[in-house]
């Protein structure tokens, strides 16, 4: 996407295909080290996934998706409450985080005066916020809920606020990159034809940046769906045996159920947890695939 990665990729391609003139020992050793790093990372991931899939294999059945959790009949326990809870959380996380994130990014990129100290402060803080541990956002969400006057926090709203806060920096940063990638010519053309800055942003810049924004947003959401720590802090219950019915409904989430069951002393429940990990993985891969699809389908080149 960025200039730096593209250049690096071209150079590496040239070396690996032997087209490079630069064939000394040093560069070959470096290439070997790169290949090893790649191999190591992929192998660890592969071993982990295969190991989990093998452990969970006995429970790849429809009951895993349609049954509620069961401690009385561990052999047919399911993750219906967690899966539905996670889906509801994703929906409301997106509804909270996406408009806020895009608006913030547009302001910073198109309207803010970058010379002002407060805008620079916001910028530095955004980078820092993206690196804050997830659990801190859970605490923040509890505080927000208390300020809003809610007594019960283990509901869709509380979890969605925590996750929205968590992915907000990610969305802002990726949206800014996408907006920045829109060529200056388009803005200048629009302004030259008499459009205001707002009209230019709304009708030209933002629509052109949508593929990048969508990709960033979905990647942010796929990070959020795997989080358990902030949801524990928010107070989501571990065991819920009914479907969510609204934003004020008590829920549990798939990663929380998995976390709780992986250390259970009953083998059947641990097997089910392994199978649920694969379900979660499929959900995340599905989101990522959607992001790739949107990027490829709508990406423009100038």
């Amino acid at each position, binding site marked *: 996407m960025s200039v730096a990665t593209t250049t690096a990729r071209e150079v590496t391609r040239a070396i690996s295909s032997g087209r490079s003139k630069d064939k000394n020992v040093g560069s070959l050793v470096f290439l070997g080290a790169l290949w090893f790093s790649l191999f190591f990372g992929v192998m660890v991931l592969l071993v982990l996934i295969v190991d989990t899939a093998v452990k969970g294999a006995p429970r790849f059945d429809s009951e895993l998706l349609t049954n509620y959790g069961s401690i009385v009949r561990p052999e047919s326990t399911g993750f219906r409450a967690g899966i539905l809870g996670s889906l509801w959380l994703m929906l409301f996380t997106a509804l909270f985080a996406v408009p806020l994130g895009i608006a913030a990014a547009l302001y910073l990129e198109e309207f803010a005066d970058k010379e002002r100290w407060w805008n620079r402060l916001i910028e530095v803080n955004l980078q820092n916020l993206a690196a804050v541990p997830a659990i801190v956002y859970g605490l923040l969400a509890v505080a927000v809920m208390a300020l809003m006057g809610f007594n019960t926090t283990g509901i869709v709203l509380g979890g969605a606020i925590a996750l929205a806060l968590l992915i907000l920096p990610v969305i802002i940063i990726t949206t800014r990159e996408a907006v920045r990638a829109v060529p200056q010519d388009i803005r200048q053309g629009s302004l030259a034809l008499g459009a205001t800055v707002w009209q230019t942003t709304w009708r030209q810049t933002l629509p052109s940046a949508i593929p990048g924004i969508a990709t960033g947003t979905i990647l942010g959401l796929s990070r959020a769906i795997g989080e358990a720590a902030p949801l524990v802090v928010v107070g989501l219950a571990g*065991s819920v*045996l009914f479907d969510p019915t609204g934003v004020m409904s008590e829920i549990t989430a798939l990663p929380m159920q998995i976390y709780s069951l992986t250390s259970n002393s009953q083998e059947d429940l641990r097997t089910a947890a392994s199978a649920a990990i694969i379900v979660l993985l499929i959900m995340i891969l599905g989101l990522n695939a959607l992001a790739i699809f949107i990027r490829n389908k709508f990406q423009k080149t100038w």
Partner: protein
Amino acid sequence: MNRTSVRRALVPGMAVLALALSACGGGDAGSDGGGDSVSGKVAVDGSSTVYPMSVAAQELLAEESPKVKVTVGESGTGGGFEAFCADKTDISDASRPIKDEEAAICEEAGIEYTELQVATDALTMVVNKDLDVDCLTVDQIIKLWGPDSKVKNWKELDPSFPDQEIKLFGPGTDSGTYDYMAADVIGAESETTRSDYESSEDDNVLVQGVGGTEGATGYFGYTYYEENTDTLKALAIDSGDGCVEPSAETAQDGSYTPLARPLFVYVNNAKYNDNKAVAAYVDFYIENLSDIAEVGKFIPLSDELYSETQTALEGIKG
């Protein structure tokens, strides 16, 4: 050109519309239509040790009255009381009685509660059948399992013990059994035990390990020992008043300390009387207590203790 710009304006427009819709949607979840059976919400939180029991009660009740919507959390006994005394939960699970300072917070908030004992949790220290050791003092347990322990031979614990290398087995650090041993029995500040032992979350692995290894010792929940008395020997525990063998009786009468402890649920009196769902859940819990304790692998209450719990339950009804 013109058409493109319309379509481009539509996309962000839709995002805003979606936000506006979300503000309208959602809302009423609390009010279920009144049916003939009981309906309503019950919030349970607290000890992760009692959690399996409260979940079992939740699950069995859901089969009978699906309209009673129970949520059970496991944020620990302390965290449970914090929420309970802030009026956020209706019922609090606890693996120890409420502390004075916690009770003071509850009192300040005007929350009246009733303590119900639901089961007894007991650890059992076991050794290989062939080992000539029958009783350990609490100090010896701490010396053997403490976080800084370097004990490698039974002789180091007591000169009268056989000259035999010790092989240790125990549950992993995630389990409630481990927490009980580390925090309550050993009571070291770090709340850990020594770490150089064979660990498994599966108690059956521990049973096989201790049963099949010379000089081995380990600990796990009492009910697992009960199922495996043929391959294991339980150690009696001396906490100052002589050696006490582990059994359901000694665990419940308090003589098998510190390896046995009562488990409680705390019920908010006002919620019990005002919210029919809370009453339905608690009544069901106590009615089916022995089945529920079995699911959680705890020692069910003796008849005497059970009638005490029933009396306490009667006392809530105002």
